[in-house]
């Protein structure tokens, strides 16, 4: 093929006779096996000393062909696969997929199912942000928050385990509602978790928010303007930290988010510190949402009337939700058979990762680590 190995050609990776100093430009390869690339991301950095001139991401190491698999599975069978994309926010993936298929089938999950979905999804958002915080802080050198966040994330995972038996790739939702009624004591568990977790957010913030080194490492690092965000299609906390007050939960409410009262935390500068604050704020808002959902959890059925063998009418539907990382969209084309004709996943991490180049130019190598961390990418979702 003509473009064989062309990814490196313009970067001059293989120039052994070129001496270090004369080149004035050092090409460093980071990853795919590198502790700070959060999986198997490979970044080729062009450096001038420690300053980044530009970078190129090489992705696809974790490509499993999820979209292709989707075309060969029935609608129900494909549901567990989506959990494997963004595996730290598996519940959100499931929610997006189920709602998209529900749209195709023109059914709606009953209110109780919707409430439970919101509870689990928001808990998942907290868990995802916790994992992000721990690893991001670890990249910047603060090792302790990782253990704190994992300790608290454990409580969420315990709730999942009690609810559906799985902790990470939960497959919690079914098309049309839920498979399982909540277990006895579910509400108490969730309430206990919320009471337990509220002071824990303060604990994280105590360690980091006013920590001088943390502030110096994150303020004015990886800045990205709102215009750039929009042009690049960046969504989620990254967009909000740049000052765009846009959250799909408010803009185009899905599930029953319109029933809940919550704020959208935003930042001004679009730097790493603002993104940190936005995510911390989102955790607090998620706690609020879960509290409201627990208080108003209605009784009733948990499954809508859905045919055993799903054959949606011919048509195509795009539906997206606000996943912890940004807009997670599903575009499903149905040809009237039991299997989707085409499943397209619009992965937030994939699109957000494009912004890495813009955010890193002119920064230092150490900042690349911070920026990769702050983008909160999951390679399972980038590569699918």
């Amino acid at each position, binding site marked *: 093929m003509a473009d064989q190995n062309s990814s490196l050609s313009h970067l001059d990776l293989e120039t052994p006779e070129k001496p270090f100093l004369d080149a004035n430009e050092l090409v*460093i390869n980071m990853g795919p096996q*590198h*502790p*700070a690339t959060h999986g198997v991301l490979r970044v080729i950095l062009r450096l001038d000393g*420690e300053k980044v001139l530009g970078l190129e991401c090489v992705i696809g190491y974790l490509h499993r062909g999820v979209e292709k698999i989707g075309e060969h599975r029935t609608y129900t069978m494909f549901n567990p696969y989506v959990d494997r994309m963004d595996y730290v926010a598996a519940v959100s993936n499931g929610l997006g997929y189920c709602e998209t298929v529900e749209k195709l089938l023109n059914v709606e999950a009953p209110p109780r199912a919707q409430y439970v979905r919101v509870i689990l999804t928001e808990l998942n958002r907290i868990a995802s942000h916790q994992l992000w915080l721990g690893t991001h*802080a*670890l*990249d*910047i*050198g*603060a*090792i*302790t928050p*990782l*253990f*704190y966040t994992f*300790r608290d994330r454990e409580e969420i995972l315990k709730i999942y385990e009690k609810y559906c038996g799985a902790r990470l790739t939960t497959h919690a939702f079914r098309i049309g509602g839920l498979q399982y009624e909540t277990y006895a004591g579910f509400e108490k568990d969730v309430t206990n978790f919320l009471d337990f977790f509220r002071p824990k957010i303060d604990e994280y913030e105590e*360690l*980091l928010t006013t*920590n001088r*080194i*943390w502030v*110096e*490492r994150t303020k004015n690092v990886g800045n990205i303007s709102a215009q750039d965000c929009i042009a690049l299609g960046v969504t989620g906390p990254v967009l909000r930290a740049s000052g765009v007050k846009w959250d799909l939960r408010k803009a185009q409410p899905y599930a029953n988010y319109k029933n809940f009262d919550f704020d959208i935390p935003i930042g001004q500068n679009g730097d790493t510190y603002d993104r940190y604050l936005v995510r911390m704020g989102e955790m607090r808002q998620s706690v609020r949402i879960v509290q409201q959902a627990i208080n108003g959890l209605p009784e009733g059925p948990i499954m809508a009337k859905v045919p055993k063998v799903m054959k949606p009418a011919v048509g195509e539907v795009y539906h997206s939700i606000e996943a912890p990382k940004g807009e997670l969209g599903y575009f499903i084309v149905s040809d009237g058979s039991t299997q989707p004709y085409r499943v397209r996943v619009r992965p937030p991490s994939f699109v957000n990762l494009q912004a890495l180049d813009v955010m890193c130019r002119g920064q*230092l*190598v*150490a*900042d690349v*680590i911070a920026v990769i961390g702050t983008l909160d990418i999951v390679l399972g979702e980038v590569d699918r």
Partner: protein
Amino acid sequence: MGQIIQYIQSYLDSDLTPGAAGNMFWALVYIMLVFVGLSVAVIAMNWLERKILAHMQVRLGPMRVGPHGLLQPIADAIKLLLKEDIMPAEADGLIFWVAPFVVVLAAFTVFVVVPFGPTHAITDMNIGILFMLGVSSLSVLGIVMAGWASNSHYPLIGALRSSAQMVSYEVAMGLAVVSAILMTSLNAEGTGTLSMIGIVQAQQAQHEWFIFKFFPLGLIAFFIFAVAMVAETNRAPFDLAEAESELTAGFHTEYSGFRWSLFFLAEYSAMIAVSSIAVTLWLGGWLRPFPNLLSNSTWDLVFSLFPGITFLFFAAICFYNAARMPKHPLFRIQTVGLAGFGIVLGLIGVILFIPAVSIRAQDIFWFAAKVAGFMYMYIWYRGTFPRYRFDQLMQMGWKVLLPMGLGVLVLTASVALLQEKLWHP
């Protein structure tokens, strides 16, 4: 034969360090003692760091090898010794081989002048502090050699980072040290000293630790040193050279097994060395707390009890934890081991109550206790702080600490002069 015994005995009456007295036998004994003590301290430090850090981070740390993981460092040492020694194919063999030894040599040689007591030092050099700073600066060489000889990008960048860092912070460190040395000259003759023992004796003579001297000047100088020494030893939050998330392991990425453990050994003994400098210069070295306020014989007696009490306290902790061990037959060995360890500690404590022993040992005890405080701070920093970025670190060294050090130096000199002119005309 008798001559030899006499040679050995002759030192016992002397009140000099073996080096200064020219007694080679006792110098050798002291060297052995310091070497063994240091190795034990590094091993203990290894265990303590993992344990303390673990407890800060809501986990348990090593628990399997020995009671509460007490034998973990030994197990680790054996593991490291048995590991394959890998040398990269393209590495510069000789330099790669020599580098860890240079680092270890530099880290251990400084202890020649560390004063654990008025006579408890291998030797008392006239240029003691200069010697310490100089030799410890040689470890940069080892790091640079290691990074370069590995012939790989990450170690090279790690080595460059740490050498740049160490060279920069040495400047601020030196200025802080000079301001403390300046304080030693505040006596009747007006002559200061660079000797480590002399510095502590000056604090004794002035009835004041230098950290409190000319408040807050001494404190600021101490602060500068305390920051610079963390940078100097490449520890968190200045552990850029071994920033795991950026450079995998920094200059020793390519090292493995025994050679790697030498770097590890050197890192910890360098930590102890710089802490010793800080203790000697500002915290009164081997002097017990409040030597001037509570200075009658009763207090002397009370403070002489501390070493024994400390060891008894450790022993009590051991017994308490032995009693808390699960009552399962499989835990019997661990329980017995922990209790045995407690008994050993308790015995040491009891021995330390014997006046003859305690008088000789309490200097060492206070010195070690102060150094231990610094070691705890090292661990604490590591648990709390994120890592500085390289330019920020340089900025801090050159734009904050260096001007501060210069200011403190000038102020100290001025205040000293004024004091001489005004209060003691």
